[in-house]
């Protein structure tokens, strides 16, 4: 086993305090003395370290999601000319806590027709991948739970498991609304996964690594500038992947009641909500890391603050989108993915491939040159693609169902 995990200061501190100093893995012991455990008990130190790390990451994520829900509700309120939650606790900060208490103490209904196993599995399938995704995100210059050498791929793989949740919930609850929501969700997720992954490949070619830490280190110029098209596609694609407005048609409340979680109540529904908000946070963190140069910034603020600023900025934009745009139909959404985002991602991929052939290991100046070329490419690609779509003000002709065509015109001459 490689000892890459000891690069992490947090890991190292815990492990080396526990493990014997005779171990060659942490020469010099931990910062607070060494070797609480006798030699030969390194496995226990390893387990404890792993457990503590997982504990910190999971609970940190769960606390952060409370904060984020509060922030989103306040921000939505401001964007809609309201005040937002402000009664319970200072600035309404305790409102999500109250939601948590209420949801925990609410009756947990399992419908009689539901498939109990599948029904109970669905919230877990939503929450666990998101929590797993938090593991590789670098929150600061040396703060991460794991630095995988396939970090980006890991993130995408883990988050793709998440698309099981809607369909499992839909099937498990045996509800028609849920079934419609689940089918829509899967159509949406399968459509947007492709442009999402393709738009990342340009970044990987420039950074030359799949590790998120390496990608941040390679961003002497933020990749949002170097890869404007990829950034755009990834932003739209990730908003679609987490199924927020305007892509929230899978839980469209005005038509499908609650979509795939219609029949969930109590803490299971709470898990769904928490999972959705956490996946929003993960998406924001990925965008901040991969495209906005993560923790890097100027020296007057610590790296964690820079990460947090970018992260919050991305979340602000996502909330802004949610408050602004109306919901789209399923055919509009899928055709936008296949006819709009996929060609754009392919153009981005092609341009990045050519550019990374010209400048294999780009310096800062070369990165700026790439940015200039790519901005032109992005503008041209979007303009050309726009020529194929419907013009502004042009409406698609509504399709007449053939069965209605005969009887619908009865008596109309």
């Amino acid at each position, binding site marked *: 086993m*490689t000892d890459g995990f000891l690069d992490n200061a947090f890991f190292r501190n815990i492990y080396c305090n526990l493990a014997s100093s005779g171990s060659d893995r942490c020469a010099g012991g931990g910062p607070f003395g060494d070797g609480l455990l006798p030699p030969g008990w390194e496995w226990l130190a390893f387990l404890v370290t792993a457990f503590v790390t997982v504990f910190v990451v999971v609970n940190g994520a769960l606390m952060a999601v409370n904060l984020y829900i509060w922030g989103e509700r306040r921000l939505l309120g401001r964007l809609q000319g309201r005040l937002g939650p402000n009664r319970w606790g200072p600035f309404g900060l305790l409102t999500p806590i109250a939601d948590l208490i209420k949801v925990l103490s609410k009756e947990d209904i399992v419908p009689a027709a539901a498939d109990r196993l599948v029904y109970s599995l669905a919230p877990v399938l939503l929450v666990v991948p998101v929590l797993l995704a938090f593991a590789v995100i670098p929150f600061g210059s040396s703060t991460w739970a794991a630095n*995988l050498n*396939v970090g980006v791929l890991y993130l995408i*793989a883990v988050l793709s498991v998440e698309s099981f949740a809607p369909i499992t919930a839909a099937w498990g609850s045996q509800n028609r609304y849920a079934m419609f929501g689940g089918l829509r969700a*899967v159509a949406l997720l399968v459509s947007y996964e492709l442009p999402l992954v393709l738009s990342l490949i340009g970044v990987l070619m420039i950074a030359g690594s799949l590790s998120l830490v390496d990608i941040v280190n390679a961003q002497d110029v933020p990749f949002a500038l170097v890869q404007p098209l990829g950034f755009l596609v990834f932003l739209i694609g990730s908003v679609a992947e987490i199924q927020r407005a305007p892509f929230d048609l899978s839980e469209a409340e005005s038509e499908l009641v609650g979509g795939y979680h219609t029949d969930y109540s109590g803490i299971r529904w709470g898990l769904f909500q928490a999972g959705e908000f956490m996946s929003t946070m993960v998406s924001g963190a990925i965008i901040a890391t991969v495209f906005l140069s993560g923790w890097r910034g100027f020296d007057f603020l610590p790296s964690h603050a820079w990460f947090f600023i970018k992260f919050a900025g991305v979340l602000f934009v996502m909330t802004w989108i949610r408050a602004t745009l109306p919901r789209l139909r399923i055919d509009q959404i899928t055709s936008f993915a296949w006819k709009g985002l996929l060609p754009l991602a392919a153009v981005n991929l092609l341009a990045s491939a050519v550019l990374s052939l010209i400048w294999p290991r780009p310096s800062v100046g070369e990165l700026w040159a790439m940015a200039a070329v790519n901005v032109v490419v992005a503008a041209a690609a979007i303009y050309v693609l726009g020529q194929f779509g419907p013009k502004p003000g042009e409406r698609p002709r509504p399709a007449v169902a053939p069965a209605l065509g005969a009887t619908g015109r009865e008596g109309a001459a």
Partner: protein
Amino acid sequence: MIERSAIIDIVFWAVAALAIAASVMVVTVRDVFKASLFLAGSFVAAAGLYVLLRAEFLAAVQVLIYVGAISILIVFTVMLVRQVSGGNRSGGPFFAIAGGVAAVLVALAISYAAVNSKWSDLDRAAAGDERVAAALTGEYQAQQSPGNPDVDLVKVPIDDPEKARHGVFERTTNQLGTMFIRDYVLAFEIISIVLLAALIGALAIARGARDGGTS
């Protein structure tokens, strides 16, 4: 005293048991939807085995493609099929015999491959082969010996300090990419053509069904 390798052993056996159990459930459970969920579970377990073999790239791709895409499509298809939870009736003795023969053949093939493979790296590391152990811990780079095919690995000092710290098996991604584009490019492209043909065929079938079979 428990070594860290013992933990890895425990994890291996757990994951392997999970994979086998999930696979058995796939073929025994009557509900097709649940069967497809178990299929996804066995894919995840296979990815876990890849992680234990330190093929993280392969594991991530396994989860991404098999769990995230193929299983989802299977589930999606299952939901559009009638009579899901009742299970389908058995196809008679012919299918049972054919299935049994196919299963036995596959098992034989896998056993043959398992017995005749050179399980060089990990076994020898465990057995104390100092060359492999050195390669794994990053002291030496493992390379195929050009002259003598019986010797798997020769000592080549690692010049890259980053690599030396992590060991040589870190950058499997690059090696895989090189293999795909250089050594196995023909097979790679043939598979691509087969996939393209399947795609076009599916498209033709779908369109024909919609236009009343005329196209």
